[in-house]
């Protein structure tokens, strides 16, 4: 939910509470005020009648006596304390022939030694008649407020949140690899200012950490590669000196170990670089052309292992990927399929490559792996522990996929290894495995 929507909803809730309470207060205030005014008027009238009585004379036709009753009362029935009180309630209004709300004021006077009770009344609008008016006016107020809040909710946040949005934009485009510190827009809002200061600090720290990590990787790479290069050179030279057969074997074994060391090292460096996202540039690369080229380059190896290659490559499949990484991804997948290809006795091994807009599937015949297939994506995990590989090719493949937002799945079924890479979110690798399932005739092929 948007911040503005939240604010608006809260405003509505508060407004509703305030208006309801306000309505209640207004209603009672009006009711009270009307009563008071009426009571004051009648008291004045009563005073006037008392004055007329004091003066003497016939006032029975005077308009003041229209709704007045003047009664002489014995002294003991004068209530102690107050000289006046009022009552109200529903009563019959003979003028309108209807029951109405009546206010009656009774006052006591002592005139010329006698006690008088003077009572006057009038019909006033009932409070129930007032209520719809109050409700109506508050309805209009509520409506007006609603319109105002909605309109302002659309306009004001644009102005208030503008610095926040600008900050967000800067942060979204932040890249730990960038060489300069981020520049956040100026703002007078203290919260945003605080946020900006924090973000500036944090991104600066991230940048520094990234730089030092990168430097470390590069230094480690440099420092390790040089001694490896020296040893390799010395062995190259030693090989040419006059050596005995046993020594030759020793040198060969050293060469092998050295080769492994150097491969592990360069692969790990590559993985680190991938993790640090040092390969950017996600302009679309035509993977169809790339795939053809790579299959061509592996042609001889495929032939040497007498494998059958069945490639279905759709034209013009573009994926947003660094070309070097795309190359690495395909090379690793294809060479993996060649390397771990093993067909049952008497059959010919095969590789099937299927590239479509949605993704890539590479299947090959092979032995059952000794660990669950999805674990093969981990570093140094090998399906065949005795093999020559160092078990890092698929880790690199997965890293590239993670980096690019591709999905990847590995499946082993019935002597068939299948790796699926889904290029889009819509069609994940698992769907590819279901939909582009292998035609069965490949399994049964016998040479």
């Amino acid at each position, binding site marked *: 939910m948007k911040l503005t929507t939240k604010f608006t909803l809260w405003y509505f809730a508060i407004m509703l509470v305030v208006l309801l309470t306000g309505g209640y207060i207004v209603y009672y205030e009006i009711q009270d005020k009307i009563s008071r005014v009426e009571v004051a008027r009648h008291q004045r009238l009563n005073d006037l009648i008392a004055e007329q009585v004091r003066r003497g004379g016939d006032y029975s036709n005077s308009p003041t006596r229209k709704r007045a009753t003047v009664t002489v009362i014995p002294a003991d029935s004068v209530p102690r304390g107050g000289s006046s009180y009022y009552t109200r309630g529903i009563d019959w209004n003979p003028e309108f022939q209807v029951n109405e709300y009546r206010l009656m004021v009774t006052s006591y006077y002592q005139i010329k030694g006698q006690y008088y009770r003077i009572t006057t009344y009038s019909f006033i609008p009932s409070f129930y008649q007032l209520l719809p008016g109050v409700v109506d006016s508050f309805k209009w107020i509520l409506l007006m407020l609603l319109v105002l809040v909605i309109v302002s909710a659309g306009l004001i946040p644009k102005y208030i949140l503008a610095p926040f949005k600008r900050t967000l934009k800067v942060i979204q485009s932040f890249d730990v690899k960038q060489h300069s510190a981020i520049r956040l827009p100026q703002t007078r809002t203290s919260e945003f200012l605080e946020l900006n200061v924090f973000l500036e600090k944090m991104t600066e720290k991230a940048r520094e950490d990234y730089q030092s990590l990168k430097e470390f990787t590069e230094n480690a790479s440099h420092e390790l590669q040089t001694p490896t290069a020296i040893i390799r050179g010395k062995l*190259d030279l030693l090989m040419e000196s006059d050596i005995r057969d046993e020594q030759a074997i020793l*040198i060969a074994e050293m*060469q092998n170990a050295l080769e492994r060391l150097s491969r592990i090292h360069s692969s790990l460096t590559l993985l680190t670089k991938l993790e640090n996202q040092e390969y950017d540039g996600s302009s679309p690369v035509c993977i169809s052309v790339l795939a053809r080229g790579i299959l061509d380059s592996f042609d001889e190896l495929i032939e*040497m292992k007498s494998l059958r290659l069945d490639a279905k490559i759709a034209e013009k499949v573009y994926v947003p990927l660094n070309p070097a990484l795309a190359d690495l991804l395909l090379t690793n997948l294809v060479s993996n399929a060649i390397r771990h290809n093993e067909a049952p006795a008497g059959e010919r091994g095969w590789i099937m490559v299927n590239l479509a807009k949605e993704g890539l599937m590479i299947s090959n015949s092979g032995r059952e792996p000794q660990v669950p297939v999805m674990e093969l994506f981990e570093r140094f995990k090998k399906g065949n522990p005795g093999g020559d*590989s160092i078990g890092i*090719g698929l880790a690199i493949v997965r890293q590239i996929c993670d980096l690019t937002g591709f999905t990847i799945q590995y499946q082993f079924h019935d002597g068939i290894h299948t790796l699926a890479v889904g290029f889009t979110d819509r069609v994940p690798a698992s769907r590819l495995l279901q939909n582009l399932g292998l035609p069965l005739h490949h399994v049964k092929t016998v040479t």
Partner: protein
Amino acid sequence: MLIIEDNQELARNIRDFLGREGYICESSETVEGATEKLTLFQYDCILLDIGLPDGSGIGLLNLIRSEHKESNVLIISAKNALDDKIIGLEKGADDYITKPFHLAELHARIRAVYRRKNLGGTNIVEFNEISLNTDTFEARVAGKLLDTTPKEFDLLLYFIVNKNRVLSRQAIAAHLWGDYTDNLANFDFVYQHVKNLRRKISNAGGLDYIGTVYGLGYKFNSHQDG
């Protein structure tokens, strides 16, 4: 040849190896020393390490390109960083090799660069009855065209350039398949390629120069008795 490399042992490896090929090598460990040598002498080929103790080798490239237009420059770097490679090649280096490399590979690269620049068009490598055209990738034995695959051609060229040297299977694999040979059981393939190549040469009537060195690899012997 000038070897600009801060690691003395590595520089000595290169000097020893190339010295046997008849190259006259000098080496320098610093930018300063290299600058002095470059202003005083002319070199056919310069091997340049990027990471030097007193500066980057990239800076030296500018000097080399302004003063020594004819020299071939080959960058040696431990950083397999794409940036270095691109900058290096843009600034006028002729090729780029990443540590750790096989000395035979370095030699092959030097020769390739030299061929490209100095022979001006006639890119023919000849050895006795074998001749290789590095432009058209045609291999001929006594004038007869050999039907070689690109990898076999590459292999033969590698052998001839590094003749009379023991080439380990690792070095050959690295040469043929580059840095990412990781996933390939490459030694079997090396064996296959060498076998096929030998068969093709002898079928065409060439001598069998390629010999197996016990435990280590192969060797192209120029002194064949027959």
